[in-house]
């Protein structure tokens, strides 16, 4: 075995990520986009329905009420929150913020991003939630 080939790593098996909790969580995070794609396709269908007319729009809302679609969208909500939890902790690592010579604590940056999530939800409530 020469030097070069001994340095080359053997190809990984497909289940390599099942062997450690850290890698399982990594794959779970990668998988958060699956329900996201499902929700996006639902949203696209809703946009098409809206373009078609009032009857199609009501039909789309009924489609969104069907149990399987509803459960998959609940999963999408959970996935978006899990993604948010993993994504927000990256921010202070990628771009540490300094204000007036003092570095902002990581928790403050993470909390600020969660405040953003709440702010967007409040905006939606203001737009859609009031009778």
């Amino acid at each position, binding site marked *: 075995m020469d030097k070069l080939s001994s340095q080359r790593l053997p190809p990984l098996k497909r289940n390599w990520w099942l062997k450690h909790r850290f890698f399982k969580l990594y794959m779970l995070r990668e998988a958060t986009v699956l329900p996201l794609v499902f929700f996006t396709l639902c949203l696209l269908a809703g946009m098409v329905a809206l373009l078609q007319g009032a009857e199609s729009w009501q039909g789309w809302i009924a489609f969104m009420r069907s149990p399987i679609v509803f459960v998959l969208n609940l999963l999408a909500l959970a996935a978006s929150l899990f993604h948010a939890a993993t994504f927000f902790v990256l921010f202070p690592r990628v771009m540490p913020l300094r204000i007036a010579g003092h570095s902002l604590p990581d928790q403050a940056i993470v909390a600020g991003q969660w405040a953003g999530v709440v702010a967007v939800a409040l905006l*939606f409530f203001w737009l859609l939630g009031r009778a």
Partner: protein
Amino acid sequence: MEKIAMNKHRSQHKQAFDEPLWWGLFSAGGVCFAVLLPAVILFIAILLPLGLLPADALSYERASALLFSVPGFLFVGAVVCLPLFHAAHRLRHGLFDISVGNDALNKKLMYGGAALLSIVALGIVVAGFFS
């Protein structure tokens, strides 16, 4: 064997110029997925089908007026297009991680799919705006 490895290295090197674009879209889409999508999914895919929103909040007329507008166009860009590129990026790398397909083809399929659906989504808004 040696030659194949070198070719692979060279082709990877050749592709590298576009990678910052995909990582940039992945990152921007990740922010939108984390900050915007929880509220969007909650209101559109959970509260609306459950009938927990006021009756006229997303009636056909109101939903059309909200979506087929300039803010609606920006909404679709942030809630559909960017998260689609985020999903495409994660799916591409996820497929690589479990050794499914080959990366060059997956890359074209994933980013191509995201681009196609993005154009459809933005096209629907434009079509609704002018109809």
